[in-house]
């Protein structure tokens, strides 16, 4: 279906142009939205192009953190010298996603709000509660290799596909939103929802809510971080399971630990139970295992993805082992 196209000169007019319409969508890099237009998953009346908004800078904040604009291209985020030096988990997560010629178009905001790669969601000939509420979930009882093992519901078992969002969840990033009611800040870990009985709602945002930037708090000196991604081929594939881990060890004792998992849930999954087990403990293989086992006690694998449970366990243990190597 044809649609109207408008280019927003500033964030306020983007929100104003989107307010009061149900059939409106923001267009950033287009690498997810244009695909969805072609596949017939969405049919907006109006596209509001936000790709040229002046939100394309990465700025250092007075507290030592970083502000990442919503239209910063994924390439520029990963190549930024401060990101490479201070937030390796983020640089690596971004670099592990998509391809170079996609990352040159893809933006911070679009990456966070990209939608699930569930094959049924992307195929309009099959029932899907996320695409058409109330029609049922084709994945349950179907092909579930890429689906959730944590936090799913009887209505939807999809996973969130972003790598970048997993790193940002581990970094306790804060998402700045401009909406009809003005500005607000949403912690990244609360941006995406679990499916529950409303799987059509991926996030807590309303259609006219514009992400303007993402703030990354500073990491104390001595903090190490990494991103590990397991997939079906060595490059250019979505994660089966991924882990973003941030760790600070002092004299052999865990002072700060943050673990986020990708490919396992409807949102980037903060492994709070594992973190609780680890905090204040002496580092070591046994406690690493105990920690992730505590997290995975709640796992509910599906017929096609039981492998994700041991895979997640091994991945988290190896990430913690690597981050604590050489720490005494």
């Amino acid at each position, binding site marked *: 279906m*044809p*649609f*109207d*196209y408008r*280019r927003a000169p500033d964030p306020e007019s983007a929100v104003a142009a989107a307010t009061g319409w149900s059939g409106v969508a923001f*267009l950033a*890099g*287009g*690498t*997810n939205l*244009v*695909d969805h*237009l*072609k596949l017939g998953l969405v049919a907006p009346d109006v*596209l509001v*192009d936000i*790709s040229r908004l002046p939100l394309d800078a990465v700025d250092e904040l007075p507290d030592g953190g970083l502000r990442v604009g919503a239209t910063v291209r994924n*390439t520029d985020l*990963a*190549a930024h*010298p401060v990101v*490479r*030096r201070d937030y*390796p988990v983020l*640089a*690596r997560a971004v*670099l*592990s996603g*998509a*391809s*170079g*010629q*996609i990352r*040159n*178009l893809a933006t911070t905001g679009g990456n966070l709000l990209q939608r699930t790669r569930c094959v049924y969601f992307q195929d309009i000939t099959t029932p899907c509660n996320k695409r058409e509420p109330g029609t049922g979930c084709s994945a349950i009882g179907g092909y579930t290799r890429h689906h959730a093992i944590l936090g799913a519901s009887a209505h939807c078992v999809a996973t969130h596909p972003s790598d970048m969002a997993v790193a940002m969840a581990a970094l306790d990033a804060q998402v700045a939103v401009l909406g009809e009611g003005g500005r607000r800040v949403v912690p990244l870990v609360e941006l995406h929802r679990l499916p529950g009985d409303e799987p059509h709602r991926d996030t807590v945002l309303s259609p006219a809510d514009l992400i303007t930037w993402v703030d990354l708090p500073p990491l104390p000196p001595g903090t190490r971080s990494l991103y590990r991604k397991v997939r079906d081929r*060595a*490059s*250019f594939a979505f994660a089966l399971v991924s882990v973003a881990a941030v760790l600070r060890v002092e004299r052999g004792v865990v002072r700060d630990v943050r673990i986020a998992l990708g490919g396992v849930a409807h949102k980037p999954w903060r492994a709070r139970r594992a973190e609780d087990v680890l905090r204040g403990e002496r580092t070591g293989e046994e406690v690493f295992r105990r920690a992730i086992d505590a997290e995975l006690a709640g796992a509910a694998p599906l017929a096609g993805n039981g492998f994700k449970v041991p895979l997640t366990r091994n991945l988290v243990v190896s990430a913690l082992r690597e981050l604590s190597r050489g720490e005494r």
Partner: protein
Amino acid sequence: MDGEIELRVDGRRRRLRVDTRTTLLDALRDGVGALAPKKGCDHGQCGACTVLLDGRRAITCLALAVAHDGAEVTTAEGLADGERLHPVQEAFLERDALQCGFCTPGQVCSAVGVLDELAAGHPSAVTADLTGPVEATDDEVRERMSGNLCRCGAYVGIVAAVRDGAR
């Protein structure tokens, strides 16, 4: 709904009317007649439609033409100076980096982008030290070129050609 856009394609200014739904790939091929970028998958998954967009490699099948009004586009055809091929194109011939040639215009544009990114010191997912210098090793080239698929499996030659280009 239509929109009027202007593109600079391989050095030539082109004005055209496009439906808002038109992708940059379709505008280039059907509107401008620039046939070097190929439509392989039309979903971002193969890289055959890669061009240099405002100087950086980009797929064109998921980009809307109206959103790129004013853009500078270089296709594989524009990389050459008439009959004088770009060094990367020469390297592709030298290294037998193609069979049917369908993926080649995208591979070549992507390779030029990769060489620029290496020269700028951008790390990749396989770079061991994110803050150190980067080198065009086989692993680096394979990782950086992973967005360009080749059904003929000319990868061995492609990797060699891109490495040649880095010298």
